[in-house]
Each structure stands twice: as C-alpha cells, then as structure tokens.
C-alpha cells in the first residue's frame, strides 16, 4: 500500500509548484496509474514516493511505514525504502553485464552467492531474458533493456514498484506487448505498483485505478471504466478519448429512475447525473462518447433521445466511419459501423441512450481545464469536442 497525503513539491524557491496538494492511495496489490499531459507533475510525484525528491509538504506511507512526513521531519532515504523502480531511460549500467545489473541490489544487500544466482536467474526468467545473462549491457535492444530494468526492479522483492513512463522509448508494437507483460507480472506477483504515463490508452489498459493529473493536482481518480464513461470534468473527458460535450439548459428531474432531462439545441434530452452530484441550477454539459451515438436508417423503437439528422462528412478509418452529423443545427460527431455505408447528405436517425449521456456537473462553463468549480454561464457554442 502506498498512501500519499497532502503532497506538495515546490521548485526554484517556491516559484514553481510542480505538485500541488496531491493525495491518493495505491491499495495493496493493485496498479495505480498517474496520467496527465507533459509537465503536470507526474514524474515529480513518483520521485517523491521514491525518495529521490524531497517534498515541500505532505506525508508518504509505504505499507504503514511513514517514509516521509514534513511535519514530523521524517525522511527515509531512497536506499532504505525497499522499492523497485524502472526509469524512463532504463538507467542500465553500461559497465556491467545483464546479470551484474540485476544482481546489484542483491549484492548491495550482501546476499550469499548461490542465492543471488538463483534469484537473478529467476528474475530474468520472469522477464524472459534468462539466456542473455552474460551479455554486456550496452549491446541490448531497447525492449531488452526495458526488461532488464524490470528484472532489476523486481529482483529484491520490493514492497512496491514504481515505473516512470517505462514504455515511452519503445516502438508502438513493442509497447503493446510490454504493456501486457508488465501487467501480467504485476498481477502474478501481486505487487503494489505506481505507474506514470502520458498515454491514455496505456493507462486505461493496464490500471486498476487511474489518477488523472493536471497542473500539479489530481483532477480525477477512479477505475478506468468510470473515468472513461463518466469523467469528472471536461478536461478529463477530452484528455481521455474523444467525446461530444453537449450544452443543456432547463435541467429538471425526469419522470423515472433518477435521470434528468433538459433542453439542447437538438431537442429535449434525457441523461444521467454524475455519480457524485446532481447538477444544480438550470444548466450543465453532457458528455457523449462517439461510439455511443447510434446512427441508423430505420427509426429506432425508443421514444426518448431520438432525433433526425443529416450527414455532413464521413471519414473512413478502417474499423469504422467517423462522421459528423447535423442534428437541428447542432454538430454531433459519431462513429458508425463500416457496413452502414453512410453517404454525405443522407438523412439518418440518431439515438443516444440516456445511460450513455453523463452530466459533467463541475464544468458547465467548459473552459477545458476542469480544475475550477462550476460556474453557471452561457451554453457552449459548439458541442463537438474533438480530441487534441
């Protein structure tokens, strides 16, 4: 378990706040990802947990041991924290063999030769590099270096594992493969893991919990499924995947099962409140993922959230068609199945199921940061929110 409370890290004498009041917990045996754009403070948070950076304020516990507490002046140095870490540059020592690299933590712990050999080989076996043990470290490929770094991080059986963008130096194919391997090994060993990345797909695929960071703060924290389906803010919604953000006025409770209803440019629309809170006031914004906009030529049977629309543009993307529809003057982006063979100018039916439309209650204004509390302002002019 890693528990971080009220973590603040300032640089340059307080002029740069890289991490700003961050609190989160990594439950034992789970993998938590810190996800966010470049410069948002992910690496700094991770390095604070590792002890490579001294936080300005806050407390860090690893497995119920307080390793840092600014208030009580506790700061356990990194070499006493019993953690494993994989660096973005891998930091494979070039003057040692693969075996020497992996054996280093055990040799430091003054372990017996035989035991070192056994554990190093077991660790290399785990990452599938057992036959490269005698190889000199500089002659490894990127993927192999990455595996050596992982084996070295795991060999001393640390309590927690920290990974800083471990896949960003690999090519796309290898990245996918290593992603799966890391997840598999993490689950097999049941090791508590904190993972940093700026790649949203990677974060969704690998994590038990995703924490989205922006400007030094954690702006959303939850399961990948929840984060994707019902992000806390427009910023999170747009950072993770592509979505329509639709402005809604006149919000009032709908007749059944706690859903809400409101007026949009497309017409009347039913949607779900956010898990945490119901929007107050008359206005909100609603998030609809592209794949949740259903496009068909026959009229759907449902009676709510069904509109008539016209196809404005169609982009063939292999797996699906990416199209933009005009629904009563509102531009809606959708993913249609390839077999629908939509044509530009065609009139179609559009359906959005109410449980696929979620209110973004903290970001009515839609200033894109998601960091500020909601303030009621005018409706958002364009409802099509493309990904960056």
């Amino acid at each position, binding site marked *: 378990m890693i528990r971080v409370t009220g973590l603040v890290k300032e640089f340059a004498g307080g002029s740069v706040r890289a991490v700003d009041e961050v609190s989160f917990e990594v439950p034992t045996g789970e993998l938590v990802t810190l996800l966010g754009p470049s410069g948002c403070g992910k690496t700094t948070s991770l390095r604070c947990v590792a002890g490579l950076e001294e936080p300005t304020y806050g407390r860090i516990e690893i497995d119920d041991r307080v390793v840092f507490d600014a208030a009580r002046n506790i700061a356990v140095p990194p070499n006493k924290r019993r953690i494993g870490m994989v660096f973005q540059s891998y930091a494979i020592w070039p003057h040692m063999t693969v075996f020497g690299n992996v054996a280093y933590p055990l040799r430091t712990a003054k372990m017996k030769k035989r035991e070192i050999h056994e554990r190093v080989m077991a660790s290399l076996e785990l990452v599938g590099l057992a036959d490269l043990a005698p190889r000199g470290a500089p002659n490894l490929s990127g993927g192999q270096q990455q595996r050596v770094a992982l084996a070295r991080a795991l060999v001393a059986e640390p309590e927690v594992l920290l990974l800083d963008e471990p896949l960003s*130096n690999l090519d796309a194919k290898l990245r996918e493969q290593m992603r799966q391997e890391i997840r598999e090994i993490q689950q097999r060993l049941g090791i508590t893991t904190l993972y940093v990345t700026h790649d949203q797909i990677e974060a969704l695929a690998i994590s038990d919990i995703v924490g989205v960071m922006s400007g030094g703060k954690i702006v959303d924290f939850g399961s990948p499924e929840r984060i994707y389906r019902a992000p806390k803010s427009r910023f999170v919604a747009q950072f993770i995947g592509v979505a329509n953000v639709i402005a809604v006025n006149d919000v009032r409770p709908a007749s059944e099962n706690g859903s809400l209803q409101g007026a949009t440019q497309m017409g009347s629309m039913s949607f779900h409140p956010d898990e945490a809170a119901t929007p107050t006031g008359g206005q909100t914004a609603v998030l609809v993922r592209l794949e949740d906009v259903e496009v068909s030529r026959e009229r759907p049977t449902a009676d709510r959230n069904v509109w008539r629309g016209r196809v404005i543009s169609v982009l063939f993307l292999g797996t699906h068609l990416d199209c933009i529809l005009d629904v009563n003057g509102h531009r809606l982006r959708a993913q249609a199945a390839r077999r629908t063979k939509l044509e530009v100018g065609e009139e179609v039916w559009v359906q959005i199921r109410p449980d696929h439309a979620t209110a973004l209650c903290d970001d009515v204004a839609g200033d894109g940061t998601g960091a500020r509390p909601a303030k009621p302002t005018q409706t958002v002019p364009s409802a099509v929110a493309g990904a960056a």
Partner: protein
Amino acid sequence: MALSGELIEPTASGALGLPHSTPGRVGRLARRLYRAGPAAWIFLAASLVLAYQVLVPLVTMIWTSFSSSQPGAEDFFSASSLTTSNYTRAFSAGFARAAGNTVVFTAGVTVVSAILGGFLAWVVVRTNTPLRRLITGLCLIRLLIPGVLPTVAWIGLANPSTGVLNRWLQDWIPWVHGPVLNVYSLPGMIWVESLDALPLTFLLLSAALRSMDPSMEEASLISGAGRLRTALHITFPVILPAILGTLILTVIRGFETFEVPVLIGLPGHIITFVVEVYTNTTGVPSDTGLASVYAVLVLAFCVCLIWLYNRFTRNTAMFTTVSGKAFRPRPANLGRGRWVTLAASLLILVFSIGLPLLMLLWASFSPPFRPIQPFTASGLSHFTLANYAGVFRNDTTVRAFVHSTFLAAGAAVIVVLLISIVAWVTVKTKIPGRKLLDHLAFAPIAIPSVLMGVSFLWFYLSLPVPVYGTLWILLLLYVARFTPVAMRVMSASMTQIDDELIEASMMTGSSWWRAFRTVALPLLKPGLLASALYVGVLAFRELSASVFVYTGGNEVVGVAMFSIWGDGSFTGLAAFGILVLLVVGVLSLVAAIVSSRFGVRK
C-alpha cells in the same frame, strides 16, 4: 590521428593526376576531380597547404635527427651526412636523467591536476555548493592567462631565498626557520604545472560528469546502495573512459609543456626532454643533432598518446546508452558539507589564480631590481609606477605589442579562410578524398608547439627563401599551429548546416562559389568568428613555438615576456604581464560577446 605516409599518398596522386592520364583508379579520380570544377582546384590548393603544414615539421625533425650536419649548412641536404650517431650520443649522455625527470614530472602533473580538477568538476556539476558559477568562471579565466605569468609568479611566491610564502611561513610559524618551500624542485614544478593544467582537466571532467544520465545513480540508490557505494560502483566506472581520455590529454600536455620546465626546471637543474630540445637548439654552440633526437622522441610519444586517445574516445560511444529525454542535472544536497566543499574549492582557486595574480600585481608596483617585499602595508608605501613606465619606454615591448597584434590578426584571418574551405569541402561536397583534408587539418595537433617551433626554424634556415629573420616565419608558424585548434571550434557549427540548403541554392542554377558565398558563409559566420577570435587570443600570447624562430627586432609578446625575465627584471615582467592580461581579457570579452550574440556555445 594517423600521420603516416599512406595518408599523404592520395593527395599526391590527386595533385599529379591530369584529367586524361592513365586509366585506372588514379585516372578516374582525376577525372572526377576535374569535373568537380573550381571546387576541385580549391580542394587541391588547400590539400597542398595543409600537407605542407604537417610534412614540414615531421620531415625536418626526422631528417635533422639523422644528419651529422646542421640546418643551413652546405651539406645538410646531402645523403652522405646521414648518420645514427645523434641517437647513440643522445642515449648515452644524460638520457636516463632527462627521461626520469620527464616521466616523474608528467605523471605528477597528471595525477595532481586530475585530482584537483576532478574535485572541482564534481563540486560544480554534482553538488549544491554555493558559488558554482564563480568557480567555473574563474577556471575559464585561468585558461586565458599565458603560462609564463603564473610560472614566474610562483617563483616569486616560493623560491627559497626571497619567496613571499617562505617568508610568511617563517614569520608566522615560530618553529619554522629557513625556507620550507622550494619551487626549483620536481614537486615545485609539478605543483605549478598542475595548477596550469587544472582548468583543462576541470572542463573535460565536468563535461564527462554532465554527460552521465543521473538516473544511473538513482537506480543504484533505489537498489539499496548508499552514496559511497554508488560513487564507487556506478559513477566512477561509468565515467572511467572519459577520465582516461582526460588523463591522456593531460599526459600529453605535461610532456610537451615549455614554460615550467624551462623557467623553473632549467635553473633548478631538473632537465626534461623539452629542456634538452630548448638548450641544444638555442645554446651556443647549438647541437641540432641532440635537440632533434629529443624532439623526435617527444613527437613519437605524443603521436602514440593521441592514437590511444582516439581509440578511447571511439570506444566510449559504446558506453553511452540511449535515453529519450535530456538529463536534468540533479545535484546532491550536501547540507552543511557544502560549506566545506566551497572552502576547499576556493582554496584551490586561490592557489591557481588568486595568489599568482596578487603576486604579479604586487610586483608590478614594487620598486624595480630590488627583492620583492612580502604583502604588507610597509611594502605598499614603496609603490611605484616605474615598471609600467618602463614598459612603454622600452622599444622591445612596444614593438612586441605591435607585432603580436599584426600576427594575431593575420593568423586569425588565414586560419579561418583555410578551415572554412576544409570544413566546406569535407562536410558538404562529394569530392573524392575529402576526408583526407579533414585529417590533414587536424594532424598538426599531434605536434607539440615546441617541436613546431624548432622544425620551422630548421626548415627555413636551410631553405634559400628569405623567410627566417622576418615576421613572416612567425605568421607561417602560427597558421600551422592554430589550424587544428580552430578546426575543433569550427566543426560543431559546420555539421549544423543542412545539405539541402546548399543543394537548394545550387538547384536554382547558382554556381558552386555563389552557393558557398550566399548560403554557406552566412551560416558559418558564428563558427568562423568564434574560431577567428580564439586563434587571435592564442596567437597574441604564443611563446613556446615563437621562442625558437624569433630574431632580434621581430619579438612578439610571449617572447618579450620571456626575455624580460631573462634580463632578471621580475617587476618589469609583472607590469608587462598585467598589461598583456588586460589586452587578452578585452579580446576574450569581445569574443564572448560576439559569440553569444551569434549563438555560438563553447
């Protein structure tokens, strides 16, 4: 750096190969050269000039070492004068002593300067010691000070009879009677030369430290190792190749250095190879045979070391691992210890630059031709401007200023012209044999300046052209000496030029020359300017080569300093030295401003 004949051969054939000569490789090469147009002619001319700069010293030195005659004598060129007797003479008389002194001196300088420079590099790059910029700045300034000045300053500080430090020690420590420090000893020489080599080792080692990915050390900390274990098992081995490279360069420096062995070693009867070359050349009667044998030995040693150095630095490529992002330096927090490191660094700098400069300033205001008083208030009361007045009244020093200014400007312009052609041809054209030009331009770096000086002396003494005894020999010498240095500065900015820029210009139908003038030259300007200024500064204060070829009436600044010292006027030299430092300082300031304005980073 290969200096063998095989390197020279292709130029020769290229130069002689006429467009329609015999078929085969030479013919094809020549035809391609011919088709390359004016570029080829410039290429040929540059090759000849550069080849001459390498070949003259080499051939002259080796020939002289096998000649029983003297350069300039009638029978110098006749094969009948060839003999190995110079070698047998050299190896019998005093060889072992000179070799021993040279080895001890060089090894001592290497070790001491590596320890001091390594310490400063570590402090500046890897710790949070205060005033790190000041430390770097002072080391850079130290690099500009001509070697004669700190050397004589240390003689003033630590000579056994009147040395200021010696008198301090006697006055302040009750149980010290008589001189403790003696600069005229091997340890004294090692100390003074180490402080001179310090900025170089500092710069090289801090570059090495900076190039290391700090997460290598962090990975070790995470693995449970402490700071000491990390330093011993990770940091040190990872930068070892760079350290070895630096050590080799320091060894070469120690081996070829002129000022300390001649100014301190010679009067202290500590004879090294360089002293042998110097005394046998300039002594009356001179013994060019012996001098040239020692010169050949020094040269052979330096060439071997440079070869070794190139092997090392080539292999270090293997020691770098890929990394996605630029490293952010993460200095260690030393806590209170940072005041200790600061104090130690400042102490080193006091010895390296503070005390010598103070000594010079003090001496420059002291009454001439009297023993220098220690730094006390009573000494202050005797202050005089007589030494400065003396500098301006002395014909030699004024002449030397004029000559050096002319030579510095001339050498800078010629060298820059030469290397811009070389750089252009090697990087941006497809002329066959262009890599050779690059090697030729770099090759003289393996020839120590002392040897460059003696070989130019012998070469022009034995030629019927009236160059010896004029300023022109100095100009030729400086151009040869500083071409490789300027190549270093230049090559970085050269590679930045995109091929396509030039090709785009050529595509619009402009000629090769036009493309060079309108596209390449403006782009090269910052690099050229930086090289020119750098060459200018170095040439202005050159001593160790000039001292061999100058003649009465043709003195330059370095030589003037040397001869004032020879006249026994420490105070006069101090005043002249301070003035020279001011000029060099202003020149360097201009260089720094110009190159920062044009975005050149050194």
